[in-house]
């Protein structure tokens, strides 16, 4: 899909440029943008390093583990069909905590691990379980508490107050997560999806 969008942007802009007479501007824009992309990444480096350093301390001090334990009651509510103390609960909690702290590099491997753990409870291979869909709904609703990437870009762009967006972003992402959870619960009960419901291993 990204291939199509990217190619459409390139081809589309050349086609439009030919008709609007902006061909020269497009050539200049292409070279300038490539240069500014690199400068942007340089500005990004410092703040990214700061955040990753802090997160390493959170990891080593056991703060992330503490979070995993604190989140346990929520996990029971979201995934009622997963047996207590099943490894999937731990790996999903770890993934969610990593997501909350914006640790994308840690979140993806942990999330894949969680999916593998959930797959052990799946009685119909190749079809998603309710727990998997709920996990993905929570995951793709964005859990990140502090949007570090966006703040880094605002700061690099010379904002007088880059962290001003933290509070509204926290409220908005809470709203999206609640909607994602409600939507997943509702959708799982809809006739067109319900036929597939499984999870509790059939004997």
């Amino acid at each position, binding site marked *: 899909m990204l291939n199509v969008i990217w190619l459409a942007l390139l081809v589309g802009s050349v086609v439009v440029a030919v008709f609007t007479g902006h061909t020269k501007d497009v050539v200049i824009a292409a070279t300038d*943008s490539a240069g*500014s992309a690199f400068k942007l990444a340089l500005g990004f480096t410092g703040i990214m390093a700061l955040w990753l*350093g802090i997160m390493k*301390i959170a990891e080593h001090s056991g703060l992330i583990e503490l979070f995993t334990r604190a989140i346990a009651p929520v996990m029971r509510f979201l995934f009622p069909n997963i047996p207590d103390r099943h490894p999937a609960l731990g790996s999903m909690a770890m993934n969610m905590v990593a997501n909350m702290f914006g640790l994308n590099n840690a979140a993806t491997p942990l999330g894949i691990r969680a999916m593998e753990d959930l797959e052990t409870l799946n009685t119909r291979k*190749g079809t998603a379980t309710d727990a998997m869909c709920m996990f*993905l709904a929570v995951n*793709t609703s964005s859990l990140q508490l502090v949007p570090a990437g966006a703040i880094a870009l605002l700061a690099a762009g010379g904002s007088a107050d880059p962290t001003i967006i933290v509070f*509204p972003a926290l409220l908005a992402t809470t709203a999206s997560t609640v*909607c994602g959870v409600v939507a997943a619960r509702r959708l799982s009960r809809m006739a067109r999806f319900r036929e597939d419901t499984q999870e509790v291993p059939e004997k």
Partner: protein
Amino acid sequence: MSGLPDLVSVASGAVFLSFLVGIPVYGFFKGVKVYETFVDGAREGFDVAVRIIPYLVAILVAIGMFRASGAMDLITSAMPTAVRDLGISPLVLSLILMRPLSGSASLGILAEIISSSGADSYEARLAAVILGSTETTLYVIAVYFGAISVNRVRYAVHAGLIADAAGVCAAVILCWVFFG
């Protein structure tokens, strides 16, 4: 209303600082060598920045060309004014459309918005809040389900996109309340 942006600024700063200072303080009392650990983790920051360069070049060049071509004017004129009234500019709209597909691409669009409208503009703040309240839904679904060879994802895409739409709506309303 004039006191509200200050309050937002203080609350946002407090959340950020509690992570920035609270975590090292907690770590110190837990016996973590905070300085060494910080440096160790921070070293990865360079790798992350380097890793996103190709994505930034790809998307910024495409968007730069797109903007220079005058195609944005076509979209602006085609966009219903009702959408504009919500504070959603053509670039913010492209961010909303690009967001489920690529995190690096949407970061690139935010960068584009910041450089064209300024880092303290309403547009940049709205885009930043949208970015913070949505996720690269289709990408995550493809990777996570791909890893366990599940092809029938049932309602996962529906739920993910509903959550993203809710995030965008909440961002538009909250930015209007806080920054409007």
